[in-house]
């Protein structure tokens, strides 16, 4: 890491500290490469995921707001890795910002000033802003990738003017020496909690999606959401499976860091043979 690294405040979310630690580790390496050091928001809580807003609107808002109350006034930006966490926090921030009653409620409940000017930055936006600083030390050697966004680009109507998540995986993969396919499933939702509650139906959807990618000659799927990553790895039951990567893993891999073996061993679908075949490890 560079010595004069700029500190950036970071909200990992529940997946990155448990099932997707490889996402967290590779993201850290990537940010360090860009000259940032990540500082995890102290004592953050779960954003509420799909479950809180499904059962109680106000609970979902308060869970998100508590996280915003933890941001010290000297920070004006919070980087958020998980697209679901990002939307939950952004939504809560937006509807609070728009209402003086809600702002007062916030200040009473948390005893802090509402961080009106705080910028919430989703990971893809962060990559876009820093795209020119990526200095790969090796090429992806023509690795063919199916870019997978899941539902992250379907911004809810209230936030349409606030958020624009760029379809960035394609252009970055190209810069890094890989290729991407055009396929019908890049924005098909992975099913989130239905993977637990309706595993059979989700298996069908995921198998179809992976099969489509295989038919279009993809060698791997790259996703920018750790929940999508887990669902794709867990629910694919095809005989021939595709390795599934976190976008951050690919970004760090081409930087020539040698810590990646730790992460790749955590995958449920082994990506190592493919990476060897492509001369990437």
């Amino acid at each position: 890491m560079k010595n004069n690294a700029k500190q950036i405040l970071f909200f990992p979310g529940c997946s990155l500290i448990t099932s997707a630690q490889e996402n967290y580790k590779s993201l850290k390496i990537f940010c360090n490469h860009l000259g940032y050091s990540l500082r995890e928001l102290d004592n953050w809580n779960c954003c509420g995921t799909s479950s809180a807003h499904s059962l109680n609107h106000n609970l979902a808002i308060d869970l998100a707001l508590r996280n915003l109350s933890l941001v010290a006034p000297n920070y004006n930006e919070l980087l958020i890795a998980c697209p679901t966490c990002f939307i939950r926090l952004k939504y809560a921030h937006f509807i609070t910002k728009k209402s003086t009653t809600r702002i007062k409620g916030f200040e009473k409940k948390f005893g802090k000033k509402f961080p009106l000017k705080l910028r919430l930055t989703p990971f893809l936006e962060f990559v876009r802003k820093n795209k020119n600083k990526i200095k790969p030390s090796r090429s992806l050697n023509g690795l063919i990738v199916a870019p997978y966004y899941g539902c992250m680009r379907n911004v809810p109507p209230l936030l349409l003017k606030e958020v624009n998540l760029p379809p960035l995986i394609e252009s970055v993969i190209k810069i890094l020496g890989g290729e991407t396919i055009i396929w019908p499933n890049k924005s098909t939702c992975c099913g989130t909690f239905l993977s637990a509650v309706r595993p059979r139906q989700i298996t069908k959807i995921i198998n179809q999606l992976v099969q489509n990618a295989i038919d279009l000659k993809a060698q791997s799927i790259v996703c920018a959401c750790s929940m999508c990553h887990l669902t794709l790895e867990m629910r694919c039951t095809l005989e021939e499976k595709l390795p599934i990567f976190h976008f951050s893993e690919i970004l760090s891999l081409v930087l020539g860091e040698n810590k990646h073996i730790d992460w790749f061993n955590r995958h449920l679908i082994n990506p190592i043979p493919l990476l060897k075949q492509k001369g990437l490890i």
Partner: protein
Amino acid sequence: MNNIIDKLNNLDHINLSLCMQCISCTNGCPFVHIMEHPPHQIIRFLQLGFMDKALSSNTPWICVGCNTCSYNCPMAIDISLIFDVIKEHVIKNKLPIPEPSIFEFHKQVLNSIKKYGRVHKLEVMFNFKLKSKDLFSDITIGLKMFLKKKLHLRPPNFDSIKQLKEIFESIKYEK
């Protein structure tokens, strides 16, 4: 039971009369085949006052809130938010829950957040499977995840349980 319409009207960016039944929402929904009614039909029920049909359908419960529908909707109707209002109304009024297992899953997640501040995935899955009397269906993949350290026995570290309990207690969500 009409107060669900009041509730929807109180959300200032929701206007049910804007829906022209173009079906773009339904065309985009990836889970329409496991819903009792396609999303546009629930909006139609609300427009026409068939509240019992809207409130007893499994559609709002199957909905995962992916927003594909509203992103497709030419009138930018927030369909998943409307479905959240329906679910909350069903819970608060103690009406029959059309999808008890989905309700149970969400409750397990919220219990975990209340108890640990963060989701303890292993415990959520275990409790959920226990309640659904289906401990073994995902045992192979579960074990693999455990061995790969994707599921952990130890609960997450978190120091503000008291504050979090207060948040939960100030909002009664349970049935």
